[in-house]
């Protein structure tokens, strides 16, 4: 018996050695130049509920780091990017982050994909004094104690202001109804929409919620139909909003529908079919590259990104891919200027102004870690199963 345990320990030790050996090998082959590689970590939701978002972000980062290293890295030093999957789960995000900080010893973190994992990681990167660039919209991310955290996605507060501005000024609705997911994203969004809409003089006549796994929302829509609103805001991520617009068609509801960035993907159009037509949502220019005016400084950046991404992955990038592109390049630019020092990188990101990215033109400052504003958003409309510019 004892002998068997000994053999087992030996086997495990041998395996561990073999794995360690492999690792040492890969980092060696990854080193093209003699310079010490610069280590960056990313915690993304590659699987789980947010997989469609995290997947696009992962692909973007892999593509960009490849391109950067082929072009000589950062001043001759290759960038070693380690991507960890948090499976859309906050506790796994924390474990992955600790691994990146303690084992891989990265100088900066990109991620997370969702607000919940990001909020779980935020106090840790602050404690470890490591700069973090989040790819999420949740407004709490840059609300309190944001010294070490930045974001590239559009802060949802601006997104709501843009959306409600559009509804009241352009569509000229007099009231609205909300149908939202009961998860943190949907509930947080609905609360914020209510606050902003009420402040802007738009009464909410009905609020209904659904579970993320719902397969039918006819019941909720019937109640909303009874309240007879001028327009409906559907706040949630795929696939339920697609179910909702199909259910609306069934119930004969024809009011304008405004959705979240959660439907800013080709999948929504595929799932909802003809029912998707007419739906509008706020998002960045990246979704309508052909409609960008030539005078817009973002045009060359977005065109280049869309071309690269489409060539490599045979599909156009979504907004989330754009968030990852911006985070990566803002970080690389900061490291280029100050070198791989955590505190200096943080300070340099904070000084980043007029950075022309995919999501907009970033203006960070000591008091603004959002970088973007509502001017960086447009209203996108679905017409004949395609995205077109609805309103600027």
């Amino acid at each position, binding site marked *: 018996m004892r002998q068997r345990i000994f053999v087992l320990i030996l086997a495990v030790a041998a395996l561990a050695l073999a794995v360690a050996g492999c690792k040492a090998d890969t980092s060696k082959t990854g080193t093209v130049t003699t310079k010490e590689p610069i280590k960056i970590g990313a915690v993304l939701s590659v*699987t789980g509920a947010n997989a469609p978002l995290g997947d696009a972000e992962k692909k973007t980062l892999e593509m960009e780091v490849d391109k950067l290293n082929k072009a000589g890295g950062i001043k001759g030093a290759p960038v070693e990017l380690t991507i960890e999957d948090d499976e859309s789960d906050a506790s796994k995000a924390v474990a992955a982050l600790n691994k990146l900080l303690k084992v891989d010893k990265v100088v900066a973190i990109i991620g997370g994909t969702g607000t919940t994992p990001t909020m779980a990681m935020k106090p840790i990167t602050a404690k470890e004094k490591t700069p973090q660039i989040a790819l999420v919209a949740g407004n709490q991310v840059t609300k309190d104690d944001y010294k070490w955290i930045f974001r590239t996605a559009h802060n949802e507060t601006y997104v709501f202001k843009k959306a409600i501005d559009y509804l009241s000024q352009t569509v000229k609705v007099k009231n609205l109804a909300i149908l939202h997911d009961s998860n943190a994203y949907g509930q947080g969004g609905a609360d914020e929409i209510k606050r902003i809409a009420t402040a802007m003089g738009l009464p909410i006549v009905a609020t209904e919620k659904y579970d993320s*796994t*719902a397969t*039918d929302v006819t*019941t909720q829509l019937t*109640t909303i139909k009874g309240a007879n609103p001028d327009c409906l805001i559907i706040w949630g991520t*795929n696939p339920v909003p697609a*179910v909702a617009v199909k259910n609306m068609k069934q119930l004969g509801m024809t009011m304008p529908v405004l959705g979240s960035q959660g439907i800013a993907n080709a999948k929504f159009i595929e799932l909802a079919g003809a029912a998707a037509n007419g739906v509008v949502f706020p998002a960045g220019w990246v979704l309508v590259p052909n409609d960008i005016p030539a005078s817009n400084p973002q045009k060359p950046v977005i065109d280049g990104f869309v071309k690269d991404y489409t060539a490599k992955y045979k599909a156009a990038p979504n907004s989330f891919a754009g968030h990852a592109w911006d985070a990566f390049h803002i970080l690389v630019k900061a490291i280029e200027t100050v070198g791989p020092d955590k505190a200096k990188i943080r300070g340099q990101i904070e000084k980043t102004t007029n950075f022309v990215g995919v999501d907009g033109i970033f203006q960070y400052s000591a008091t603004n870690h959002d970088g973007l504003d509502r001017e960086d958003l447009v209203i996108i409309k679905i017409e004949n199963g395609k995205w077109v510019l609805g309103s600027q």
Partner: protein
Amino acid sequence: MLLSKVLQFVITGVANGAIYALIALGFTLIYNSRQIINFAQGEFVVIGGMAAYTFYVTAHLPLPVALLAAILVVTLLGVAFERFVILPLKNAASISLIIATIGMSIFLRTGAMLIWGKEAMTLPHFFGDKPWNIMGATILPQQIFIIAITLVIVVGMQLFFRLTVTGKAMLAASMNPEAARLMGIRSERMVMYSFAFSAALGAVAGVSIAPLVMMSFGSGAALGIKGFSAAILGGLTNPLGAVLGGLSLGVIESVGAGLISSAFKEAIALIVLLMVLLIKPSGVFGKIGTRRHAR
């Protein structure tokens, strides 16, 4: 207005309830043959829907062919599941078998993610998506189809178990495998049949609801829970009970959510389930199940 609203809640409830019923039928079949809950049932449903998507959208087969092909694939999956997982565990306790089905569900879910990716998918409506109007409330042809197919299947099952030799043999093998074996019935083969049937039923549910429900690799858990609740409500052993359980669950959920608050929609189903388990653990329609207690 209120009347047509309530009517809409009821119609929606019946339409959704039929989906739950269709999924619940698969649970009762396996429970009857092996006295276990098959937690991979939801995955059979999802794989049915997604396989149909592949055959129809990717392979461009005509819709009926694609649907049948998907049902066939999932049926074979059910047979493989029984042969490679359940049969080797024939002497194991029920709890081990149930854990094996949980393992299978994780395996299938992950497999589906690797094969079909992480995005949701849907199928076109079989008979168009123009809703029918019933006194101000609407119902889709697809929903009527689901209700109809559920009824056809439950009647078919009753006839099969009562009138055919195989059906009677399956019933006998489930009531008392040893005695059935003494009578010359190959009990193990009957268990395999019931897994095949139940997988096929799951796939029928999957392809029928795919036009209404967006399916992704992870949808099985939620669909499985609803079907399981419906089966429990109906008493687990009785297919007719499962159908009634599914329909009542759908209606209670929809009317409750509509008249009280949509915040409680998911809670209502679970509260009903808990109450049934507390007050009448054999299920509201579970009388027929008592006959097996003789065993």
